[in-house]
């Protein structure tokens, strides 16, 4: 049985795209933090921990919120069977630099634990899992560019082996004000849903063009 994309979301400068259509745009808030906050408010996300997250986690988290919004079925799945598999290019380098700023001046040396904890790219997966109580397979892959062929191979393998029944997967990257998240909810195909898109590289690459 093939695995299908039941919903996807792309967050890029000024725009949120859901299932191929512009779902929210805001050209008045060009700056990253302001745009993320506008998304947070527009989609009525209520999660105070959001404000503690670093920039990478924020965009990955919000894209996941949008993908899962209104999806009650996912809550009925075994939490151990929902995976989160993400890929990114710049790891946590943006926050690494911020943390390094707290240690580089020896006369003003105050290493920050709240910054240090975000110097790991897989913490974005942790934030998504904590919010949604997902406990399945989770891995953060690093590649220069989004590799739809690898990610689909890997995630389809996990779904086909029965290790997971659903997966939040895709790409989330942030560096120096540049960002992009492309997240897909992938599930085993159900007979009653006809027009879902197969989670294969040729289709994925079309969706993110």
């Amino acid at each position: 049985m093939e695995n299908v994309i039941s919903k996807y979301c792309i967050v890029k400068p000024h725009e949120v795209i859901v299932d191929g259509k512009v779902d929210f745009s805001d050209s008045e808030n060009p700056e990253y933090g302001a745009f993320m906050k506008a998304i947070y408010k527009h989609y009525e996300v209520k999660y105070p921990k959001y404000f503690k997250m670093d920039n990478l986690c924020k965009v990955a988290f919000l894209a996941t919120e949008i993908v899962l919004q209104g999806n009650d079925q996912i809550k009925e799945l075994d939490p151990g069977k929902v995976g989160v598999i993400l890929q990114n290019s710049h790891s946590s380098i943006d926050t690494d630099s911020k943390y390094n700023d707290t240690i580089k001046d020896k006369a003003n040396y105050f290493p920050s634990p709240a910054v240090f904890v975000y110097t790991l790219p897989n913490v974005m997966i942790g934030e998504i899992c904590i919010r949604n109580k997902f406990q399945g397979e989770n891995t953060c892959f690093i590649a220069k560019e989004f590799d739809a062929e690898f990610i689909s191979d890997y995630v389809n393998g996990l779904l086909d082996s029965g290790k997971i029944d659903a997966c939040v997967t895709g790409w989330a990257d942030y560096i120096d004000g540049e960002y992009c998240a492309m997240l897909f909810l992938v599930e085993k195909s159900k007979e009653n849903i006809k027009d879902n898109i197969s989670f294969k590289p040729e289709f994925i690459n079309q969706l993110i063009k």
Partner: protein
Amino acid sequence: MNKIYTIADNIISSLGFTSNENFLALKAGKSGISKTSDPKLTQSPLQVSQVDSERLNSDFSRLEKPEDYTRLEKMMILSINDALSQTEIDPSKEDTLFVFSSVKGNIDLIEDENHPFDKDRIHLWAMSDSVCNFFKSKIKPIFISNACISGITAINTGAHLLKNQKYKNVIVCGGDVISEFTPSGFQSFKAVSENPCKPFDANRDGITLGEGVGTIILSTNKNLVKEDNPVIFRGGANTNDANHISGPSRTGDGLYYAIRNTLDEAGKSDTKIDYISGHGTATPYNDEMESKAIKWAELDHVPVNSLKSYWGHTLGAAGIIECVAGIHSIKENCLIKTLGYSEHGVSEAINIIKEYEETEVRNFLKTASGFGGSNAAAYFSELNAD
């Protein structure tokens, strides 16, 4: 299903530059941890396990110019080179894939504004490209950065990719280096012990950090196997405890699920396991959580150790070098003691290895847990065992 053979390995650490050098030190109960006050690494005295830089550069200069590669790249190239020398694999061929794991990669470059490398070299993919270019590999490598479970995730991923038969061999290599970045961060978490760490002990008070690299070569090609009874990768899993980004679940549920899923994949339905190579970072919470997960899995009778008191916590290398030690425990039929452990300090009565012992070891389970709520396990056994 094709079997996944472990056909070669290497460890580069404070205890040596080959698996054998390292395993001999473990058997002798010798730790690589020592105290440093090097101002480039720390603002206060720090216990740490470091790779000998002089030997690194002199060994590396036999292969290439040391100044063209970062510290971690040199360690990785030497490690992979040594592992490859034990096999007939040609790493430039398309049937061989590289899988890397590192938490911080070339992080030492972020602290040195005058480093001689291209500015992109800080990125993890640039580091793996540099290593792959050395071996003339034309296949896009896979890179994993999953905090402290990275090494096991890399092994699990490598095995997973062998199953779909696209590749015949996977070279799994992981590591991290010590610079000021990581120790200062863990110190701000008040998580670093002032003494060499004491896993599972009543007086444990935090981790000791270390640096190193490990390599394991996995293959489905039976013709490359030299032993009569090789060690096989049987199963592995990565889970999340969905509890807190920097603290493990109190119940051990995430790690328990990783163990259960691993043994399920391995088709192992009994609890006859000869050895568990634990994570054992020696923080109060981690070791306590681990004891609960092991008990939950009904493995509290199985001998367990943590090797963190030999090598320190080597982050992206840890899962790999600890699996290499597990493979050598099988090959040499012995169990390494948990250095630093004297008084039981976790609530479950798990069976911590106190003394070096020669006994039949046919299989082992490796576990790990890390920031971001991540947990992982992998299970290996001899060809003639289950």
